[in-house]
């Protein structure tokens, strides 16, 4: 029958289109991976000390914290939000935990970690409340909270550093010890990624985060509690930032007022590089890992290649700009292709 023939040819076309979109999104991760490998080769040629065990371990542990934060930021970006306060949350939690440890040196590392998560979550819930209940734009709310958290960190520390000799052995060892042969920081990051993978792909709440970002209007009609979702997302972000605070202080063995100042920008950069859409609704864990790893390698490789560390920020800015523009251009190309395929 002509009718069904028409329909199936139409649908065939649609399916092709869909598979092409999927192909492009796969291609972008493969492309990122290829770029990472290429970068590694170039760096290795320039400086053979790059691919040594010591350097690689160093690089991966450095990337662990970034990748943990990027995961939380991905969720925030998916809901069409942004969180500029995480560097400050990290510093606040790091400082409070470090102070506690310097007084109660017997504090179990696990308790220290839980304490950090708790502090971060409180910060995150506050932001979630401001964004979802009061309706303040995420950028404004988190800009304000960034200052408040940073100011609190300075105030409670009174401008003093807490350095390694004030911390207990067990606390510093969080970053240096290893579990099952894997550095603890990396181990924690892996555990978090596994939980997150399950959470966002296999639970209703996880999928609702995507739904809210993809189409807030229909989310309302489908009966999704947006307030709840936003509070959850910012709390997760805060909790991860709090956790990272503890890890950071343990790793660098110092807590200071300006810890991780500006680190939120690196985290956002990792997400954007990983293909998280700033317009909300899409973003994948695999992309975020690659984005974080790429930035981790760059930060590690620049000094090895004798590039002045002062270039780091400029390069990072240029990369973000480049990534978002390429993203936009690719999307335009796909849209244009789809239009051209429409028969008129």
């Amino acid at each position, binding site marked *: 029958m002509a009718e069904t023939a028409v329909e199936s040819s139409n649908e065939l076309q649609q399916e092709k289109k869909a598979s092409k979109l999927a192909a492009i999104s796969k291609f972008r991760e493969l492309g990122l991976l290829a770029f990472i490998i290429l970068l590694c080769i170039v760096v290795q040629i320039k400086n053979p000390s790059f691919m040594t065990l010591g350097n690689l371990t160093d690089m991966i542990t450095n990337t662990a914290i970034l990748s943990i934060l990027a995961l939380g930021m991905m969720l925030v970006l998916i809901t069409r939000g942004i969180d500029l306060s995480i560097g400050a949350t990290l510093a606040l939690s790091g400082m409070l935990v470090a102070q506690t440890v310097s007084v109660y040196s017997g504090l179990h590392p696990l308790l220290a970690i839980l304490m950090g998560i708790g502090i971060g979550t409180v910060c995150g819930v506050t932001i979630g409340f401001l964004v979802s209940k*009061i309706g*303040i734009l995420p950028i404004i709310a988190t800009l304000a909270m960034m200052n408040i958290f940073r100011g609190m960190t300075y*105030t409670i520390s009174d401008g003093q550093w807490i350095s390694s000799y004030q911390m207990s052995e067990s606390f510093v060892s969080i970053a240096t010890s290893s579990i099952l042969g894997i550095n603890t920081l990396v181990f924690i990051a892996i555990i978090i990624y596994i939980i997150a993978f399950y959470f966002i792909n296999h639970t209703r709440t996880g999928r609702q985060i995507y739904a809210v970002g993809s189409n807030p209007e229909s989310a309302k009609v489908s009966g999704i509690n947006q307030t709840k979702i936003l509070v959850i997302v910012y709390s997760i972000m805060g909790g991860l930032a709090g956790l990272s605070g503890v890890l950071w202080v343990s790793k660098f063995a110092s807590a200071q007022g300006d810890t991780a100042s500006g680190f939120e920008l690196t985290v956002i950069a990792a997400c954007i590089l990983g293909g998280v859409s700033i317009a909300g609704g899409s973003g994948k864990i695999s992309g975020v890992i690659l984005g974080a790893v790429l930035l981790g390698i760059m930060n590690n490789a620049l000094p090895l290649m004798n590039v*002045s560390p002062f270039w780091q920020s400029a390069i990072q800015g240029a990369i973000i700009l480049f990534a978002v523009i390429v993203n936009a251009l690719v999307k335009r190309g796909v849209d244009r292709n789809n239009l051209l395929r429409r028969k008129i």
Partner: protein
Amino acid sequence: MEQRTLDQNEYVQRTLKNKQEFSLKKFFLQWEWLLILVFLLVIVINTSLSPYFLNAAGLRDATMVFLDKGFIVFPMVMIMILRDIDISVGSTVALSSVIMATLYNTLNVPMGAAIVICLLVGALCGLINGLLIVKFKELSAVIVTLATMILYRGIAYVILEDQASGNFPEWFSFFGWGSVAGIPFILIAFTILAIVFTLLLHKTTFGRQVYAMGNNDTASRFSGVRVDRIKVIVFTLAGLMAAITAIFLASRMGSTRPNVAMMYELDVIAMVALGGISTAGGKGRMIGAIIAVFIIGYLQYGLGLINIPSQTMLIIIGLLLLVSVAVPKMKWNWKFKKSGSKRKLE
């Protein structure tokens, strides 16, 4: 053209008033009165807390210190009316001042030319922001200026690394420290630019179109407003004003380095929000933001006098920003609940 319409009175079936009625209630229900009240409150509290507050020389110096970022407030008002945001202004200040200092110190460019180039660099930074935002509409101003915020300061670091650059000629200190007839030069410059920007926003067709775009970008485009052009101009102005800030800042401090003007964007956005410019766009007036500059400035100065550390100021400004964006929203919600079933006018 008007002839065609003005002459055809045969259709007039009912006349419409074209004189605006003066409403006393409306006049006093303006955000700016509240701001003036807050301003007076700040003065009174500061005076009662510290006997040194109302000291003429002290006030004068304080004004010189906080006014430099006030210049960025003018274009930021327009940007926020356009429902956009620019968080790269602090970095633009750093980049343009670093380039100015480097040109003078390292490349022996005359100071006058260096200043002009500084202004051009600032304007260029803003122009790039504006062009990226209108050419790539799928990116928001948040992301574009976030990226350029990192980029511009990054370039400043590439140029000066962690060095400071100063040794400006004697006369250059006039911008930051000089006075004309006992009035600080920076205050004079601020006042002149405040008048210029107030007129631009409220009395010209340009300003009217800015408001139109902030309320309804699509309808403005359909009405023949050149929306892209206006947006690019406004962002360029933001860059230019950041460069002016850079000049005053470098002059006052006697040198510059890549990490100057860190987080200026926050102070500026806080001033604009406190000034009653809604983050939802389309609303607010220049005068409110100007009053807000002085409120935050004197608040900072007064708190400094009673030995409240500058770090605490971060918390206070953050809270101030939150309160000033949250209060109008709460008022709005309350209004919605109150206004029952007002029928549409037919």
